């Protein structure tokens, strides 16, 4: 609708509502990058991340099996026979698998593993765009933002996760959006930012359950901040509801699905073990018992390797809070500290220091950068100093991250990444710190055999929770009778008596894997199982022909 030009007295900017939180007057002249600038930034980072990710993941075979599992699940949603939404699975938070859905519609994109760097390149580039907006919201000009973004975005740890298909890139993008929305809401009290923060956190929780604690803290902080500014009880209540409703709904819905489909409504809370990593795992040394000293040392190592910026940012935020009654400074500092405490607490309670991984510390790296931006905004007289210190620490972080990726014991193929980048060579078959054997040749070889020799529908009984890599690389999930097809009940029945019902069984042979087929028929691994003649074997898998009738002596 065409309107006459507004008169000079028209109130500038969008409508605001609610009790003001920020001590400073909202500056309407602060320009946040628009669509075009955002797209350019997105394109640049996305291309870089995809190229690096492709070289490392697809060419270098540095494939993290958790990502491969999610990709397979997404593939099965479309291409299983019949297609099943339940293939998303209930082992991991669902959102990353759901995010793979668009890229797995095209079969070759999935089966070639290009989908891995493709998805995370998009997610990581999205995170950079929202970080840029946050820095701009904190009144940082473009000339200052770009070097910081470059130093952060080209951090080797960030580069690795921007191209490997893991959930880190996705949830860090959501975290970047959530922090942008939260900062914007604090400055403007515009309800739409509160809504955006709520939605972003809800999605974040569906990529990493631990963010439920962040959501809870944020909800409390919103209420406390409004109460301190003497907002009315209705406004406090309504604002908290507006923020928390998406989070509560997401958790309630997921609980409902777990209850209806798996029969364990709170299974997602209680069972956080992942066994997929064990498919290519060869074990990692950990301390026999984890005490607070061990955890503290590891946390310090992580702090140096992943988010050294926090060493300066946390005290800076605390000072900003004390001197300026700057609630956002306290909130950001709390998020950082909370993240560290949650990591350490989880390891202590689980008595397992291997939970203190490099990637679990990445949210603190992103939050520290946002914290630095807030200090920049708050300390008007020291902006250049703050900027220089931030840049310096981010540059230092390039080296500490590289070193951590090469040497820190608890990781997911980061060392293999550094070798690939350094040498340009494939890492197929080599070991990597964190206790993994790199590569997918065993899966590819088995997949090739299956494609060549098996044609009948549902001919191969297999535990897809372990053999997902083979299933994906065949591109023909209809050949397999897995636990998704008709649920665990029907699958277990066939497992007990496969004779004449399936032609083959396939199992992952690693004892650490927990393959259910192998657990039922332990002789498969060495070919001594009656009625199951091994026809193909790779380093990690065995395929055996099943007899038509139950043989004597069969289990």
């Amino acid at each position: 609708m065409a309107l006459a030009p507004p008169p000079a007295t028209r109130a500038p900017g969008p409508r605001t509502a609610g009790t003001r939180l920020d001590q400073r007057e909202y500056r309407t002249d602060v320009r946040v990058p628009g669509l075009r600038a955002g797209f350019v930034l997105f394109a640049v980072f996305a291309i870089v991340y995809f190229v690096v990710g492709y070289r490392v993941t697809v060419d270098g075979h540095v494939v993290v099996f958790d990502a491969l599992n999610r990709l397979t699940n997404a593939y099965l949603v479309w291409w299983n026979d019949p297609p099943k939404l339940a293939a998303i699975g209930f082992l991991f938070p669902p959102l990353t698998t759901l995010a793979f859905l668009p890229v797995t519609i095209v079969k070759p994109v999935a089966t070639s593993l290009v989908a891995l760097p493709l998805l995370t390149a998009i997610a990581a580039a999205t995170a950079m765009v929202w970080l840029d907006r946050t820095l701009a919201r904190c009144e940082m000009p473009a000339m200052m933002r770009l070097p910081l973004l470059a130093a952060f975005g080209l951090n080797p740890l960030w580069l690795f996760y921007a191209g490997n298909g893991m959930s880190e890139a996705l949830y860090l993008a959501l975290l970047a959006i959530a922090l942008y929305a939260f900062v914007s809401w604090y400055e403007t009290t515009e309800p739409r930012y509160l809504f955006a923060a709520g939605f972003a956190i809800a999605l974040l929780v569906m990529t990493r359950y631990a963010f439920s604690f962040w959501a809870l803290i944020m909800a409390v902080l919103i209420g406390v901040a409004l109460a301190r500014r003497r907002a009315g009880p209705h406004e406090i209540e309504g604002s908290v509801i507006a923020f928390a409703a998406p989070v509560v709904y997401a958790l309630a819905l997921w609980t409902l699905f777990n209850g209806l489909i798996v029969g364990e409504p709170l299974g997602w809370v209680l069972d956080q073990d992942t066994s997929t990593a064990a498919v290519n795992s060869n074990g990692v040394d950990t301390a026999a018992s984890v005490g607070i000293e061990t955890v503290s040392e590891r946390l310090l190592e992580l702090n140096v390797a992943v988010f050294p910026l926090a060493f300066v940012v946390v005290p800076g935020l605390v000072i900003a809070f004390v001197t300026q009654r700057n609630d956002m400074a306290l909130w950001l500092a709390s998020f950082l500290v909370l993240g560290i405490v949650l990591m350490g607490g989880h390891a202590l309670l689980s008595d397992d220091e291997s939970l203190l991984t490099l990637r679990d510390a990445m949210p603190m790296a992103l939050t520290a950068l946002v914290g630095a931006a807030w200090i920049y905004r708050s300390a008007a007289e020291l902006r250049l100093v703050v900027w220089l210190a931030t840049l310096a620490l981010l540059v230092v972080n390039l080296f500490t991250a590289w070193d951590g990726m090469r040497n820190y014991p608890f990781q997911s193929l980061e060392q293999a990444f550094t070798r690939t980048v350094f040498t340009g060579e494939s890492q197929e078959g080599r070991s990597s710190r964190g206790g993994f054997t790199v590569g997918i040749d065993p899966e590819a070889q088995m997949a090739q055999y299956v494609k060549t020799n098996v044609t009948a529908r549902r001919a191969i009984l297999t535990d897809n929770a372990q053999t997902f890599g083979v299933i994906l690389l065949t591109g023909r999930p209809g050949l397999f009778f897995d636990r998704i097809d008709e649920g665990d009940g029907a699958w277990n029945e066939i497992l007990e008596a496969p004779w004449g019902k399936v032609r083959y069984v396939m199992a992952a042979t690693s004892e650490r894997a927990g393959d259910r087929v192998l657990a039922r028929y332990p002789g498969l691994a060495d070919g001594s199982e009656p009625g199951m003649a091994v026809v193909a074997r790779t380093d990690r898998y065995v395929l055996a022909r099943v007899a038509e009738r139950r043989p004597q002596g069969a289990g």
Partner: protein
Amino acid sequence: MIPEPLARHLRVVPIAVDETTLYLAVADVLDDDTVAALREHTHLELRGFLASRNSIDELLQRVHGGEYVAVARTELLTRFPEESAARVLSTGQAIALALLAIAFLVCLVLAVKPTLIVAMALSSVFYLSTSLYKFKLTYDALGHQHEVAVTDEEIAALDERDLPTYTILIPLYREAAVVPRLIAGIGGLDYPKTKLDVRLLCEEDDDETVPALQAMDLPPHFKVVVVPDAQPKTKPKACNYGLLQADGKYVVIYDAEDRPDPDQLKKIVIAFSKVDPSVTCIQAKLNYFNADQNLLTRWFAIEYSMHFDLLLPGLDAQDVPIPLGGTSNHFITDRLIELGAWDPFNVTEDADLGIRLHKAGYKTAMIDSTTLEEANSELNNWIRQRSRWIKGYIQTWLVHMRHPFKLLRQVGLKSWLSFQLTVGGTFIFLLNPIFWGLTTLFFLTEWGFIRELFPSVVFYAAAFQLFIGNFVFMYMNVAGCVQRSYYDLAKFALLSPLYWGLMSLAAWKGFLQLFYAPFYWEKTIHGLDDGHPGAPPVRTAA
């Protein structure tokens, strides 16, 4: 002797004639222009007797009431027969629907499952499209001001002497109880009383309201207009009747219980001076003064907050047809008359007029001024009212879809699609119980037949709509409340799905009534706020 239109225009009524002279009751002295106009119809000497304008109007109504009511009933039908809801279905529509029904039955007989799957798939796609579109509209409106902005300084700078006459039409039926409050409410408007032309439209058979009004000592800017009894007995017919004698440059409809912002009329005058010349209607926002009376009124306030603060501004921003609200739509009088005014056969004449406006190349704008109404607080009353709205929206869709390709050419693809998804989107209230019923039945029985009706993609679309779409709409209601600073309503917005259940109940009532009583006006009983203190939801100042 003097044609009615001329008599109405000149405000003259012949009262006697002899061989040489025509005696006229006149509202003003006979000037040269008036005499010249009358000379075209008589050569008798003219003698005028001054009477008050109100008396002249009453006299005209008494003399020409039959003609007036005929115009009120048939003006649109005569001038734009294809735009009138006088018939529910056109011949073409009736044939098309019959053929569709036959085809569906044949397919059902020949192949039950595939037919039902296709029906489910189409319904799911339509449902999803409607939801996504409404989400886009509300999201666009968040944090952006699409309404015409009028500042307090601009209002203060107005010279009241330059203000135009403003006609306010207030249809009444058996509402004697609310009349005193109505008079006070109009009296509270910040507009020169000498420039107000308030017409209280009463039905001839209303033996409650008419005597009550006649017994009152009404200020001179109030006129009681008694509408002769004639079918259809609807609000738009009464408004058309009242419009015939409207003096105002602008005209607005208010309901009896309405409480507009005091400065609303001045804001509209200023707004019309600022907007594009093609803007013919400016819609104010509606909400409720008794929102906290009970759960039903809270839901109603939530719905209106979302509708008027997010959805309609979103439509405005898209430059697509806006289905107008029931009251507080301010028109340029001449243009309204040019369009044929309201359709007396359409029970949501406001929504229909918004579409006709757009088809004629005119525009509607929104303004950030609110009229508080009485929210229906009694369930049966609410169902009656809502069923009428749903019926009216379906009527509106049917009328404007008589020639769908012509409509497409007239308004363009974007507006055409918007019309399907907003006005046509009413049909999802009919679909809701079917989908909810199937879902509930499936969860209880795990009946394989239901599973088979939703193969992969269809299932995913339907599941997305069920789990995500419904939540998004519930959340948009929360957003509407918070956007309007009605924070205390946010928690009640979380119970929106129950409200939607009621809407579906009303929708089926309205849909079925379309077949046996298409023009029947389910009268909404007002005054049920029970002397409610009248505080609207708590609105935190920005």
